[in-house]
């Protein structure tokens, strides 16, 4: 395992991987890559590699978990044993169970859950390679998987983290910055409705720093949102062009 670095931000103000404090990692998103799932998405954010798949809506199994007035969302966040430096046991850890819940609750407000009573939708998130900020990247990908499955939604959900590293507020923490740095603020929100669906904080921040971090994370989310929309449209853009010919 790599040594703890001495400086997370160098004299010129650049971070370990050469980014500026308010810069995102390079992101690549693809939609509809798993043919067996009703909807799917794949995201690469820096060194993170995450697959998300959605199944449904279908009848709930076991049946007693279904609700008479709404659809039930189920979510499983799982890290592959090879996703981290030290082999991770494939059994769901305490952390994964919690993240599954957190991700589900951040996606739920975006779905028209009341349209389909007594049904369920399953979301599976598989982290193939982790490098900090996987919950945020997972939310971004899972939301796309839901849209790809044709489930009616109020808006796509985007997530991004900000944090504090060596007394500077920075955007989109990577693994080392998350572990060595002093605070991490993951935030998920729906840009068109301007509604926050997830806000967590781990570490110590002054009220001013916290506000700065939230605003920075929101800016980051908006940047990812354009990429997210682009990825969803790419699959269908050819259709639009050919439709135009018809006019």
């Amino acid at each position: 395992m790599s040594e703890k670095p001495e400086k997370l931000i160098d004299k010129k103000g650049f971070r370990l991987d050469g980014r500026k404090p308010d810069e995102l990692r390079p992101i690549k998103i693809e939609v509809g890559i798993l043919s067996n799932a009703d909807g799917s998405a794949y995201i690469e954010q820096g060194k993170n590699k995450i697959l998300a798949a959605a199944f449904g809506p279908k009848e709930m199994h076991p049946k007693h978990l279904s609700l008479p007035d709404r659809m039930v969302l189920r979510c499983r966040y799982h890290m592959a044993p090879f996703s981290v430096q030290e082999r991770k046991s494939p059994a769901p850890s305490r952390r994964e169970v919690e993240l599954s819940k957190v991700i589900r609750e951040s996606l739920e407000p975006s779905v028209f859950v009341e349209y389909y009573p007594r049904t369920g939708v399953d979301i599976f998130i598989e982290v193939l390679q982790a490098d900090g900020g996987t919950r945020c990247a997972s939310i971004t990908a899972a939301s796309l998987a839901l849209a790809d499955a044709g489930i009616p939604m109020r808006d796509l959900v985007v997530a991004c983290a900000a944090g504090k590293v060596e007394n500077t507020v920075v955007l989109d923490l990577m693994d080392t910055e998350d572990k060595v740095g002093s605070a991490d603020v993951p935030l998920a929100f729906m840009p068109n409705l301007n509604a926050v669906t997830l806000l967590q904080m781990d570490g110590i921040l002054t009220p001013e720093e916290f506000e700065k971090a939230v605003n920075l994370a929101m800016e980051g989310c908006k940047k990812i949102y354009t990429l997210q929309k682009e990825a969803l449209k790419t699959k269908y853009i050819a259709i639009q062009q050919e439709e135009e010919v018809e006019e």
Partner: protein
Amino acid sequence: MPTFFEKKQVVTPGELLAEGDYLAGENTYAEDNKIYASRIGLADCDNKKVNVVALRAFYFPKVGDMVIGTVLEVGFNGWTVDIKAPYTALLRASDVLSRPYKPQNDELSQVLNGGDLIVAKIASYDRAHDPQLTVGEPGLGKITRGQIMKVTPTKIPRVIGRKGSMISMIKQEAGCQIILGINGVILVTGKTPEDEELAMMAIQKIEEESHTSGLTDRITQFLKEEKAKREENKK
């Protein structure tokens, strides 16, 4: 009161479509006098009503829809049927027998058994109950011959064509009976398996190229060429 899209533009869920005096049509929703898309699809405005033609959707039961389903299980007084929807449908024994069902006289598994395919109409459906099917109309009931194929439910209108132009053309050219289930299941019955195969190839082609223009002409051409090829092979 502007709209924020061009005709047939691809929109994503949450995209603002119109503001002010507009009505929310299919696959859209209204909030604070604004209309947003709720599915990925092609936006369209029809006389103050904003619609999105969904590119990704699933079948959702509606009363009166003709569907093709698979019998899952024989129950005490009816059958459960898979209609490729979020709910399994129910078919009552008295509906099929068209008389009261007497458990001592009637053996349900001899009428319909697990795995059998049926053409049925949705008789009733609401939020609280699973859809109920009926076969009490001409043309409905157990499928005894023909071939089944599945397409995405959103593509069914394309297979029908404008005022049924596409489907009647395929029927004529391939010499087949075709029943379209709104749930995306299609039954093709012809005189020979070759005829059925021809019709299925045409429908497959429609699904793959459903978004392109001049499709009916192209499919006609395709069917004629295929038929000519087969004549050749026979000789």
